[in-house]
């Protein structure tokens, strides 16, 4: 290597900034250890991708497999990087929580990664603190729970962002204060003292300076804190937030809607009803992703899979295939836009070839919808390159040897979902939804999250 041989690429160099670690195997004897190490590294601490570059000559070699050898440098890495729960930090945090007037729990992906669902729930119930889940934290806490508030940030419902605006103690666990969550940072939780729990020390103070940083696994920290805190009563604060929620709902109810098309809520509700809430929902990137995050009734832990901060379109179909292969007995639905579904459409062949059964709901608005929405709001409806044509998905499914349906009326949605569930193999449903509906509310990029663009009666009548 290093001489520009046929197809030689510096994969180690190319992948360095996007992997947790990478390995170049230079000796066949190192291969087994490297694979073991790679899996441990990928799964340990804050999980992340690890790449192994196995050159051609190594692949053509032979060796005897042997289990992981003795301690090496990576063992050393893991031994010294295990976070230890600081009891003084737990005490300090408990004290702040006990004295809080308007506290909020914000729960992120870390809670799901450490499977701390019961710990989160026990903590929230004992302290009586309402729970916000970030996009990747969705499904860690059942949305049907009286303490569940919803998602924060750019497309969070208004009452969630209002609550963040008013909270005096923000208890953030397993999250990194992404800019889609915070909006303008100085206006995010401006009145709050922050308790920040994360397993990755480099996330602490990165965006918001924490009053009490706790570097720990979410499960351990939540369990310790539940023991340390006093039972709380925040009914007044919760009903204040609920009153904002009702006010906002009243306001948007006045907007006249077209009832004819299938809409995200009807599609998602039909999926939930048909699967008894047991499905795993994998979304792509765009409007449908936000609608699904917001409007699906999340009750099954870890049932929401999406590409978070990287926002990679094309994620849903292959990811859903992976989920189904890992959990063959669970119904798996991919929900995608008509843009993103086409970005990895070739996986329909894999699904067919491997006999994997994924149900696909395309929310087809004929646009790269989320970008169109930005063009509408911020670029005077200059719909440049966002209107898109797609294939006939019924014919496409047929061409791959799969089942396809097109649904154009709302009343046909439940029957279509039912048919998809009882049909063997992968099924694609092309739901023709309203072409220019938007995700509301929306926080303009760079604004504080409490200044939201809401759906208004006037704007809607402008549509025609």
């Amino acid at each position, binding site marked *: 290597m290093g001489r520009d041989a046929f197809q030689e690429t510096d994969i180690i160099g190319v992948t*360095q*900034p996007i992997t*947790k670690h990478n390995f170049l195997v*230079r000796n066949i004897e190192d291969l087994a250890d490297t694979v073991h190490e790679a899996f441990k590294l990928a799964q340990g601490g804050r999980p992340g991708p690890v790449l192994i570059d196995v050159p051609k000559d190594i692949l053509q070699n032979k060796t005897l497999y042997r289990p992981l050898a003795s301690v090496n*440098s990576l063992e050393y*890495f893991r031994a*010294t990087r295990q976070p230890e729960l600081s009891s003084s930090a737990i005490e300090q945090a408990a004290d702040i929580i006990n004295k809080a007037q308007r506290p909020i729990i914000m729960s992120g992906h870390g809670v799901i990664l450490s499977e701390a669902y019961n710990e989160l729930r026990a903590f929230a119930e004992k302290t009586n603190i309402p729970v916000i889940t970030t996009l990747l934290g969705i499904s860690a806490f059942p949305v049907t729970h009286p303490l569940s508030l919803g998602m924060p940030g750019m497309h969070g419902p208004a009452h969630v962002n209002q609550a963040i605006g008013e909270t005096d103690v923000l208890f953030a666990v397993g999250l990194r204060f992404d800019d889609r969550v915070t909006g303008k940072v100085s206006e995010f939780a401006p009145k709050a003292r922050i308790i920040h729990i994360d397993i*990755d020390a480099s996330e602490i*103070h990165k965006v918001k*300076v924490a009053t009490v940083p706790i570097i720990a696994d979410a499960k351990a920290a939540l369990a310790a804190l539940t023991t340390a805190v006093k039972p709380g009563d925040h009914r007044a604060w919760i009903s204040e937030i609920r009153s904002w929620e009702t006010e906002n709902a009243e306001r948007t109810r006045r907007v006249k809607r077209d009832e004819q098309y299938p809409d995200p809520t009807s599609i998602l509700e039909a999926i939930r009803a048909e699967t008894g809430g047991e499905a795993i929902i994998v979304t792509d990137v765009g409007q449908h992703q936000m609608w699904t995050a917001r409007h699906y009734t999340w009750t099954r832990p870890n049932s929401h899979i999406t590409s978070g901060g990287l926002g990679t379109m094309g994620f849903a179909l292959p990811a859903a295939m992976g989920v189904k292969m890992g959990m063959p007995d669970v119904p798996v639905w991919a929900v995608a836009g008509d843009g993103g579904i086409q970005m990895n459409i070739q996986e329909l062949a894999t699904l067919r070839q491997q006999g994997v059964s994924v149900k696909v709901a395309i929310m087809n608005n004929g646009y790269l919808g989320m970008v169109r929405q930005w063009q509408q709001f911020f670029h005077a409806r200059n719909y440049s390159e966002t209107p898109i044509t797609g294939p006939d998905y019924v014919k496409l499914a047929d061409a791959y040897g799969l089942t396809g349906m097109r649904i154009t009326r709302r009343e046909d949605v439940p029957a279509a979902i039912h048919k998809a569930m009882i049909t063997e193999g992968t099924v694609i449903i092309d739901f023709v939804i309203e072409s220019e509906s938007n995700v509301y509310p929306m926080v303009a990029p760079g604004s504080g999250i409490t200044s939201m663009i809401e759906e208004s009666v006037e704007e809607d009548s402008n549509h025609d």
Partner: protein
Amino acid sequence: MTKHVAPPKRAGQENAPQDGGHTHILVLFVDDSHGALDRIIGLLRRRRSNMQTFAIGRSEMPNVVRITVVVNDSEVGVEQLVEQLRKIVDVRHIVNLSFEQAVARELALIKVNSTAAHQNEIIELGHLFGAHAADVDHETVTLEVTGSADKIDKLVTLLQAHGIREVARTGCVAMTRGTANT
């Protein structure tokens, strides 16, 4: 090595104490493994560290290299950087030293124009800084000097009158003062 560069503003740290730039010496003990150096340099670039010098060499341990990085950053910024560097698998250990806690030295070679008439003058000036002539030729004198970055800056400034042809500096290496190990 300037101490006066403003630290880069990091997105979203408005609520962090804006304590201005401080010079920090980061000492990293790193496995001498494939790609380790790339990972460290890449991270310093991606995280927009305000790097002043970078020096690498063997340590007292076999297969462990010692890297000394001087960065100019706010306290919060440098803490972030240390935690990010700590996540690199090849980094065994990392120490954030202040200049007060450290013996910090840099070596420089300075090639200066010199006629026979000025040779002694240049060498004498060098002596005031503990420098010695590493090489003398008809038209040039090459001084070798060790010390703090400030001291080297000062000598370079004074030698400018003669015309400097080349300056080669190693970047800072450092160690904790006293008996304690870094």
